[in-house]
């Protein structure tokens, strides 16, 4: 219980310099690729998006104040993703949530055989509950509860306030809990 009251810890990040750029971004690459996988329709686009993000981050390194590197990288990724959408669909620039991309949980990056062997299949009831969420709610659940971002990092990735992330996330979980209340695999055991 005690650890639940602690703020999510992140690994210490080395200082951002051009010569140590790879050391600086290295710890964040898995998260960036995972979030890109949530924002893009296929794994190739996700990898391209992270590549764009790295190049933009390298170019903007001088202007980075050193605080919250993962949120900084996620903000760059969001802007890179917006530019990609703008190039492909110039008429659709009004809804920032749409610009954040489409959640495509059914088409994740292809795993290796080792990865598959190390991962359990998700329960069907949780997949059903996710499928019933609106896109806005699914976005925040995907980024926070599945990809492991903090509220602030999810806010940076989506371009919305952290308070909005929190309210959408709480509402989404509340709906899922209500929907699953009578499911035999989810129901609370009597205490």
């Amino acid at each position, binding site marked *: *219980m*005690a650890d*639940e*009251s*602690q*703020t999510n810890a992140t690994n210490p990040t080395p200082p951002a310099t*051009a*010569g*140590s*750029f*790879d*050391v600086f*971004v*290295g710890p964040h*690459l*898995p998260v960036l*690729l*995972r979030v890109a*996988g949530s924002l893009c329709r296929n*794994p190739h686009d996700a990898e391209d998006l*992270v*590549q764009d993000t*790295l*190049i933009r981050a*390298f*170019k903007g390194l001088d202007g980075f104040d050193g605080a919250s590197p993962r949120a900084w990288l996620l903000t760059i990724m969001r802007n890179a993703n917006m530019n990609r959408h703008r190039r492909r669909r110039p008429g659709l620039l009004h809804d920032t949530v749409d610009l954040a991309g489409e959640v495509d*949980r059914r088409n994740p*990056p*292809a*795993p*290796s055989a*080792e*990865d*598959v062997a*190390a*991962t*359990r299949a*998700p*329960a069907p*009831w*949780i*997949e059903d509950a*996710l499928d019933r969420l609106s896109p806005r709610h699914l976005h925040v*659940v995907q980024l*926070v*509860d*599945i*990809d*492991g971002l903090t*509220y602030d990092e999810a806010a940076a990735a989506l371009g919305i306030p952290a308070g909005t992330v*929190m309210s959408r996330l*709480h509402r989404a*979980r509340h709906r*899922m*809990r209500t929907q699953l*209340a009578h499911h035999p695999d*989810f129901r*609370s*055991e009597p*205490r």
Partner: protein
Amino acid sequence: MRPHDMIDMFRRKGGARCVEVGRKIQTYLDGGLDPDTAAKVSRHLHACRRCGLAADDFRRLKSALAETSAPMSAEPLRRLQALAADLAAGDNAT
């Protein structure tokens, strides 16, 4: 909700009322509360069966969601790390 349950929600258990804790359970489970408030919520969750069960539900939900995380292939990560190294070495035409 039955009238008895409504009244029960305003009773103080473990130093806090259900109506106060109910709004904070998810933030508590996400680690977003200050230490004093987190301790108060924790005491209430141990003292109140209804709120304790709600917290159990949200814990179970969060755990199940974390398990849906798709496995990630190592190969794209290696390529991205190589790109970062190239940028650091000044080998990439940007």
